[in-house]
């Protein structure tokens, strides 16, 4: 049973490193989808990309700070 749980954990780990970051990414995707549906503008794709890039910078910097504090 514990082996199955460990395997399940590894499966989830394929997509999730940090749950907060994952929630933020999902919110960005959901928000972008709503924006596309409302505006039908190609800029919605660009906005999604910028936000995803920004979250990458933010969360890597946050993790680096966390690790340096030990």
């Amino acid at each position: 049973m514990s082996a199955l749980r460990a395997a399940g954990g590894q499966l989830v780990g394929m997509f999730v490193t940090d749950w907060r970051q994952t929630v933020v990414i999902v919110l960005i995707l959901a928000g972008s989808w709503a924006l596309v549906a409302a505006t039908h503008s190609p800029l919605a794709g660009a906005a999604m990309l910028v936000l995803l890039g920004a979250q990458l910078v933010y969360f890597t910097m946050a993790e680096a700070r966390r690790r340096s504090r030990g």
Partner: protein
Amino acid sequence: MVSTLLVFGTAFLGSAVESVEALTIVLAVGLTRGWRSPLAGAAAAVVVLAALVGIFGQVLVAVVPDWLLKVAIGSLILLFGLRWLHKAVLRSAGVIALRDEQEAFRELESELAGATDWVGFLISFKGVFLEGLEVAFIVFGVGSSTHNLPLAAAGGLAAVVVVVAVGAALRKPLSRVPENQMKYAVGVLLSSLGTFWAAEGMGVTWPFDFVAILGIAAFYLVASQVAVAVIRGRRGVPVAA
């Protein structure tokens, strides 16, 4: 031409990285406990994986509408790619250690001391199954969203064949493979492909169609390099040239 290179290249690189990790596990068991149990475990994992992927893959492609497949698979590829890119940034910035296949091999070797053949079989099965699942995900995700599953499968298969052949010849961990740089590249590619398809599934029409992925990749490369530079700057580590 661009789409062909991206599909094959991404599937090849991503599958190669995962295959190297699976190979390390099988080699550690084989060189420690003999070859029968790890090879049997690896073979069993491949059979189970092929069956699962074959069944679920067919069902998914046949039942799920194209736009939903793009949003769902694109989002999962994006999450997968961003996870790799996140770790690649931290490795490049020196925050976490680089992946060292020799070290992974030695750790597993010491864990296996005194273990039975059944344990060797299970470790090999689990390692090959989980790494193989990532290969299958990369190949299926990249291939199904571009409606070019055969090309993606060819890239994945080519990578597995190359890694297994080299590993069988050398009989030691492929520590000289630039795994960390490859993970960085695959992280950028998968994040870009996932972003492109998820947005397309939502209804976005990207300018220049598939070529836009190159622009998206350039953006992620710049963003990740900015993160590396800022983190290294704060740690007082000079940015690599």
